[in-house]
Structures are given as C-alpha cells and as structure tokens.
C-alpha cells in the first residue's frame, strides 16, 4: 500500500507503458506461434506415420497452450492499462491538491495531514481581535484539505490493491507446460518391433530363467546326442550345432527341439509306458510366444494335463517377429512326453524349426508287426 509520499512521487503511467509492452509481448508470442506452425507444416510435408501423428498431437497441445497464454497476457495487459490510467489520474489529482494547499500557505504532513503554515499564523496574529475567527476559518480549510487528500489517497490505494490482485491472479494463471524429459520410448519400441532377429533387443531373462534354460538345453543336447543320426533325419541346417548354425533364424534351434524320447528304435515306444512314469503329466510347449498348447496325456496319468505357456516380450509383438525365447521357456515346461508330447509339439509349427516327421511316426502305438496300414515289408523304410 503506497503512502502519501509514495503516491505523490509515483509514476503510474509506467504501468500503462508496461501494459502496452505486455500487448506487444502477446504479439511476439503470436508471431512465434506462427513461425512454429510454418515449421511444423514444413515437417509434415515430408513425414507421415504414427510418430508424426503423435508429434502433431503434441504440437496441438503447444498451440492450445500458447493461444491460452496469449489470451491471458492480453487480458492482463488490458486490466493493467486501465488500472494504470486510473491510478495516474488519481495521483495527478493528489498532486494538484497537494500543490494547491501548499500554495495557500498550508503545510501538508505525510499522514496526509494539512496544518496551518507560518504565513497563516502571521496573518492570524495580524488580525488582532479577529484572529480567532481567521484561525477557525483556516483550520476548517485545513481539515477539509486533509479529508480530501485522504480520500484521494484511499482511491489510489484501492486502485493499486485491485490492480495488484488482478495482476497476481494473472501471474498465477500462467502455468508452464510440463517438461518432457524422456528420450523417446516410442523410438525404443520401434527398434524392438523392427528387430525380427530375436536377438539383441529383447529383454534379458532373469538369472533363474537363464539357469532353467541352460539345464533344458543340456538335457536336450544329451538326448539328441544319444539318438542315432539316421533315426532323426532333418535338414542339414537343423542338424548343425548352435555354434555351427549360420542361418539367422536358427541360432537357438536346439533350444526348441521337441523332446524326443530316448529311443534307439522308434518302434519300441509302441507299447504304452507305465503311467506312473508320467506322474507329472504330459505337456507340450506353447505356440508362438503367447500360445498355450495343451498336451493330451494318457488317461491313467494322475497328473492329467499340463500346459506350457510362453510370454512375449513387448518388443516382439510386431508382425513376423517370432518370439524364440518365450517359446523356449514354454517348451521346457513339458515333461517327457509320449504321444501327448508329440501332439502338443505341433503347436510350435510356426516356429523356426521344421516338423520332425520321423519322431512323430516313432510314437505311433500300433504294433508294427500287424502292418495295419497295408504297407508291404518291401516298402517299409524301417524294415
């Protein structure tokens, strides 16, 4: 709240000038927004995709924000300009009144308080017997002057308080945009989606998962080593060890190899195994990533069914992106399977490995001696 002396020495026209610059600042913001729009339009000519849509969505937010700020700036400028003009007029009146009282010989104290001046006291003394009357008249004028000055000062104070409150409220309305400090998650997602090799950008499995996968790989490797080569004819690329595999699609082929029973002769599994051997139930691997394949076990198996499920890393959701790691984990969930395991193994048909037709045939339960299919012994490749 300005004092009387503050009001006398004030230059409220500065507020008017400030308001004019506010309006110019709003124009600066508008001009900057225009340049921004031109730049964005130029970018959009050369760019069309979902990332561009997201970019333009953010551009719209910025434009809306700047437009709102421009409106608030103009509003503040208009209010300050009016208040500044009002205060300038009131302060000018205050100065005129102060000057008039002083010209009349009164003293004006900072309160403000108008008192009789030295010249007036001389005049009272010179009035002789009428001195009291003259003094009373001058005191009345001084009191009226005090009231007038206080009224004008209160007007200045009221205008200042209103303008200050309005400007403070306007300042509170100016909220900066939230910062975006991310480095572009969408870009990382794009990289994940674009990586179809299944190596490099996928999430690293936890230590436990790694150990489990290693154990599975060791078991399966041992099983494969025990199998005679002629009983599991496969494409050359599929018979290569992981270290020898050169095809990008098959670096982890052995991790996904179906669990073939340890058989020297595939026909030996023609007899149903002891159900108790499969107390844990039969299972199969999942399909591609999120697929869940259920292996159908024999009826006597107490464990019944078990399913292997795979989870897909977010980055592997792109079309054509196989999810070898989740599939590997799901394949390991199955127990040693008999027929059910082979049936479930088909769920991986979309994976990176071909069907093992020989292994599938090796699990038929028919007695080979009966030749139920009418295949002559001459045509039986296994004879």
């Amino acid at each position: 709240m300005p004092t009387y002396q503050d009001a006398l020495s004030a230059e409220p026209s500065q507020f008017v000038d400030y308001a004019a610059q506010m309006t110019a600042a709003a124009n600066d913001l508008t001009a900057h927004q225009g340049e921004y729009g031109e730049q964005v339009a130029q970018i959009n000519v050369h760019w069309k995709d979902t990332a561009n849509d997201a970019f333009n969505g953010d551009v719209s937010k910025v434009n809306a924000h700047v437009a709102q700020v421009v409106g608030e700036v103009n509003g503040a400028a208009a209010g300050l300009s009016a208040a500044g003009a009002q205060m300038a007029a009131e302060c000018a009146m205050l100065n005129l009144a102060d000057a008039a009282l002083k010209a009349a010989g009164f003293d004006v104290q900072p309160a403000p308080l108008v008192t009789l001046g030295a010249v007036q006291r001389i005049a009272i003394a010179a009035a002789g017997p009428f001195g009291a009357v003259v003094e009373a008249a001058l005191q009345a004028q001084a009191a009226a002057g005090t009231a007038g000055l206080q009224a004008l000062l209160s007007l200045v104070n009221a205008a200042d308080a209103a303008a200050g409150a309005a400007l403070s409220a306007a300042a509170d309305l100016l909220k900066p945009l939230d910062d975006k400090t991310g480095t572009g998650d969408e870009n990382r997602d794009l990289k994940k989606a674009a990586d179809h090799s299944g190596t490099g950008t996928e999430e690293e499995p936890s230590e436990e998962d790694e150990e489990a996968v290693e154990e599975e790989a060791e078991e399966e490797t041992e099983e494969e080593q025990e199998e005679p080569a002629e009983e599991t004819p496969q494409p050359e690329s599929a018979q290569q060890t992981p270290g020898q595999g050169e095809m990008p699609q098959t670096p982890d082929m052995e991790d996904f190899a179906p669990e073939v029973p340890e058989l020297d002769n595939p026909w030996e599994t023609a007899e149903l195994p002891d159900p108790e051997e499969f107390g844990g139930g039969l299972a199969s691997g999942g399909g591609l990533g999120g697929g869940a394949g259920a292996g159908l076990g024999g009826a006597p198996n107490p464990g019944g069914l078990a399913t292997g499920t795979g989870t897909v890393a977010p980055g592997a959701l792109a079309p054509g992106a196989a999810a070898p790691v989740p599939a590997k984990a799901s394949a390991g969930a199955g127990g040693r399977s008999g027929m059910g395991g082979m049936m479930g193994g088909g769920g991986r048909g979309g994976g990176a490995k071909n069907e093992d037709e020989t292994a599938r045939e090796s699990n038929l339960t028919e007695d080979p001696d009966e030749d139920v299919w009418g295949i002559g012994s001459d045509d039986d490749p296994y004879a």
Partner: protein
Amino acid sequence: MTLHMDVDDVRSGGAGLRGLAPGAQNAPRRVEGPSRSAADRNGGFATGEAGTRWQAALAAVASGVERRLDWQGEQVVGSADDLESADAENGTRFKDIQGDLPAGPTR
C-alpha cells in the same frame, strides 16, 4: 497406412524447430525492462511487485514452451535418425540372410 519420410527434410525440420525454440523468450524479454521500471518508479505500489511476478511467470511459461519446442525438435530429429538406422539395419539383415542361403544348384 501410408508411411513416408524424407529423412533429410524431416531432420532439418527438427533442427529448425530447435532453432526456433529460443524465440519464445522474446515476449518475456520485451516486458522485463518495463516491469522493473514500473516497480522501481512506483515504490510501495502492490501493482509494481505484482508486475514483476507476472513477468517472471511469463518467463517461466516461455521457458516451458522453449523446452517443449526443443524437445519436439529433438524427437523429430531422433525419429528421422531412427528410421534411417532401422532401414540400414533391415538392409544389413537381408544381406546377411542372402549370404547365409546355401549356394549351389537348385533341385
């Protein structure tokens, strides 16, 4: 959906956005002097202090816009770089696959 990007143009556009960002400070810079002058020459007036606060708030808003435009430009440039690297990566992958295909007579 149509996917299209002129990588160099988009990259330069992003750089242009980043160059444009500091222009947001023109507005608060313009009112900085008048706000200080109005406060100094009108001592005791609440309006003077409020004007200074208002200028600081506008400067904060302008800084926010500047940072956002700079960030947008960075993202645009990053998108262009990303697409270019992804394209190069895919090209390399196909070349690798082509090199891994067994050479020889077809059956």
